[in-house]
């Protein structure tokens, strides 16, 4: 596994983890410290949390700042334009993340 790939698949310290909220100040109790954990939580967290963070641009910001995965961040930014919501939004976010991680594991870092 090359260095870039390890970097993207790393687990970050608690203070750099992503904390899922459903609205201002309302924390769901779920947090992700790695991309794999992020994917897992996206799959079952309250969907309001996905709507809240996606349309604020929080996912892009975290992915860029913590993992430097611009390509993935850009895909989520484009998804924001679609105005999707509910379970449909969840399944799009999930599939974007899942395929990114799959590509990463198969071919190395793609950012």
């Amino acid at each position, binding site marked *: 596994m090359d260095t870039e790939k390890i970097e993207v698949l790393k687990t970050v310290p*608690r203070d750099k983890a992503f904390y899922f*909220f459903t609205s*201002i*100040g309302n*924390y769901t*109790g779920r*947090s992700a410290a790695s991309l794999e954990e992020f994917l897992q939580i996206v799959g079952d967290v309250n969907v309001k949390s996905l709507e809240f963070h996606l349309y604020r641009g929080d996912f892009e910001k975290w992915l860029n700042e913590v993992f430097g995965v611009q390509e993935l961040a850009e895909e989520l930014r484009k998804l924001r334009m679609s105005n999707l919501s509910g379970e449909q939004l969840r399944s799009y976010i999930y599939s974007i993340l899942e395929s990114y991680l799959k590509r990463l594991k198969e071919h190395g870092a793609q950012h």
Partner: protein
Amino acid sequence: MKIKSNSLILDPVDLKILEALMEDARQTYTMIGKRLGIAHSTVYDRIKRMEEHGIIKKYTTLIDREKAGAKCITAVMTIYTDPKESEKIAEKLCEYPQICEVYTSLSEELQIIAKIMAEDQESLHEFIAKFIAPLQGVLRIRTSIITKKFKETIPPLVNNNNAGESALAVKSDKRR
């Protein structure tokens, strides 16, 4: 007036002095004395004693932040915690100047209730996400932003109907 170890038994005069101070802490000893029909030296002695016993904790000013031009929102947070960590979390919250009141409450789950002030909704969210959610033992947080204040007073120490009839024992806190 009787002192038992670190407790001070307050009599009706003490209670009336406290109520006068709660109404307006800038009143002089003479003004309070005149109002209650006692000597200003008595008022002085009793206030000093109540200060020494920590019954009077401090004298402060109630500010209308909006009129003072401060950009500010207030919110009440209910923080559900792991019981093993709740004490530590509550103590940590007390360290932040943005958090002005912290309480613990025992209901179905152990909760911490805290009042927080921030410049705007975004900075409130940022603060909670950055400093409170990551604390070890925080299970989830519910935050209610206060939209309108209808009343803010401190209730009187005793019901006016019973005032002066019974003494009130207050434990003092020597750790001031």
